[in-house]
């Protein structure tokens, strides 16, 4: 994947990618985990390892293993999603914003 080489020399705060990432703070973020659940919450914090903290998170879970399914939800509040169990991560943004916000071209 592009941009996977570490930034050299520049302090993390100056990295354009980190600046971009910082712009995602407080946006609605939808994180999928290994067991099929999704968590929707406000992006609160992330560390180098990619562990994410979401605020006011809601858990969505499928009511069926197979076939047509509906989603049950419940509020969880502040949650930490370890990077190891995260398998997808989406943010809520308008189509126009999408390119400027999420592209990893520097």
């Amino acid at each position: 994947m592009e941009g996977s080489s570490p930034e050299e020399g520049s302090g993390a705060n100056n990295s354009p990618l980190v600046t971009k990432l910082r712009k995602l703070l407080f946006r609605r973020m939808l994180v999928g985990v290994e067991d099929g659940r999704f968590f929707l919450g406000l992006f609160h914090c992330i560390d180098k390892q990619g562990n994410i903290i979401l605020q006011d998170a809601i858990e969505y879970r499928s009511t069926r293993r197979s076939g047509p399914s509906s989603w049950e939800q419940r509020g969880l509040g502040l949650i930490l999603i370890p990077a190891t169990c995260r398998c997808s991560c989406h943010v809520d943004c308008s189509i126009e914003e999408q390119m400027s916000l999420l592209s990893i071209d520097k």
Partner: protein
Amino acid sequence: MATNYEGGGGGGGGGSGGAAPPKSIPSGDDAVWADAAPLIEAACNDLQEGELVHGENFSLFAAMSALEIMDPKMDPGIESSGYCSVDEAIENGIAPVPLSFDRTVDVKHTLDVMDHLLACEATWHNGHSLAQTVFSCIYILRIERTSPHPLLHSYCRVMRATCNAVVSAVSDARTHEEEDLFTMSYGLPLKDGGDDKCLSILNSVEETVSRQLRACKAQPSKKKVLEEFESLQTNPDLEEGYCRAVLCRLRFRKHFYHALTCMRKPQGRGLELARKHIAACLSELDNMFKSLDFLRSHSFYQESAVTSTTASGCRPIGFDVSLNSRLLSPTPPRAVKVLSWIDAVSYFEKLLHYLDTICSFSLDPALESVLHFIVKFQLSQPPLVARAHLQLLLVHDGKLYGRDSFSDVIARSLALPDVTKDKEFQTNEFVLQLGQLLINLIKILCANTAWQRRKLGKILQDWSVISIQLELALKREFGELLNSSVDESVCMKVSKHLLMWAQEQTYWIALRFLTLGFELQLYSPSEYCMVYWYMYVIFMKQVETMQIRIVTGSDSSRRKGKKKRDHHARDSGRDAMASSYCLLLQCYMCLSEGLAMMLAALRNESNAFQMLNIFNSEQERFIQHFELLQKAQVPEHISYHIFKESTAHACISDVVKHNYFREAQRIAASLKGSFSADPERLAELRLIEQVAEHNRIALNVINQVGAGDPTLRVPLEFTHHNHFVVAVVKRS
């Protein structure tokens, strides 16, 4: 590059590396869910070790309390191997209705469900959540599904209604503060409009089954039964046994529900009826127990009766604990071990006996007997449900038993005849405040002992503050009169009595606080000395206050007595009781003083009794134990140094000379006459005599041997009394 998904198919999860968000989770208006994973991965690489990306409102401390997803101890929603939802479980046939198309098997399985539910209910009462116990039953979760099956339906309905009644009793009593898991029913279908009809449904089912039982007993040839009557099931040899097993279970539920409802009637109006239902419950429990052999002899696969949650020993169908775990949002998913059916039955037996004790309470309006009753009740460590019901009976609508206002209770306890009907007294600010404190006190006394002790320590402060306020008000209003010998005004007399009364209650609370420490095993034997010394000081203060109150009280009633002879007789009876009670306190005082001095002398003279503790000094432990009492100035001017002064020079020969234990024995013996009508007090007096006697002998032996004798061992044992220790002299 960023990729966007506009909602994948309905199914979530699946392969790793970017599962599409389900359509049903909406993004904002004119917005899409855009994949941020590549950016995150790239940006994280640019982060320094330990660096965080966060907003201004971030606090590391708050972040520590975040729930960690996929952590088996923190994430109750973690996907287990079971079903994803109740509906999915039902579709997979884990809770069929009917339970079997073979009617004999159906009844058998229904009985298993009933038994397992009883075990779940008992487990819930013993500190687990409702969701993981009773509501692990899919039939209870979807009660409407059971309506074609009247037997199961009626049982589930009354079960749910009972749970609801118990939850509301415990939350009304607020005793759940100690065990908040108990009332947590968030997300469970606990309340339902139709549940008031549960009894009529139950009654009609009960009637049907008892008709079936009669029918099969009346028919000499069992074969005929099944043709002519609609039987419970199809095997004529088992009909009677199954009918009996079903009936006692239904009847138990009916009477238990009735008993709980009757107990909640205000002013104790339903207590008599409740006792009848409790007796019926107990006899049905007995019948249930008797059905054990029958049920076990007709089931194939069997678990041992010691561990099985059903009488038959078969595993019940229709239960899944993991289904509900996601409803327990903030609590960790605990593993619940459901009690065995036999343990559940004996739990309910115990609970019913406790409820019966509550129902047979005389509703005596005298404060002293109320407090005495609660303390005695607590001694047997009643379960939460029983304590909640006791509290609801005692305090209802801000009144004692929902009947007597606490101003009246105080007036009666003051033993001043003129104030009882006095409007001014009833609305006096201090009296109202004291009434509120009494309500709190009674509620706290109904809590479990550990929690109770902590709370008692805290409310001591409130009581001592009100005593100070009363004293100040007394000085302010009657300051100039205080020293004059003029006839006291009624108002002043009442104020004085109120002050003394408040102090007496404060001392009572302090003593309860200290003695609970023994029951909770909070003191080490090397600390008994200071505890008994503190108890002695408080007993002394309590006796002093009480004596003054009795003397001033009887002075005034004697004056009044000239007018009303009857009144006088009644008063003197009360005076006599009060002075016997005062003597009893003196007896405790002697005992406490004797024990404190004996232990101090042993410590001073014998090496075996040195306070050896490397962690903290005696003074520190004194503060740890009595900090709350000292903060509340109960009693005033007591410090570690006074304790040290009064015990530093204690020696065995002096303690022998003082003869504290002989004095305690003498008082106890003399009191037997006054308490002849009260078997409990008599028993207590006998215990005190025994404690005093044993300690007196031990003391004499120590005196003869010499406390310095290196072979001397004096273990302390609570063999006779819960709070007063007995010294046993041994030589090694």
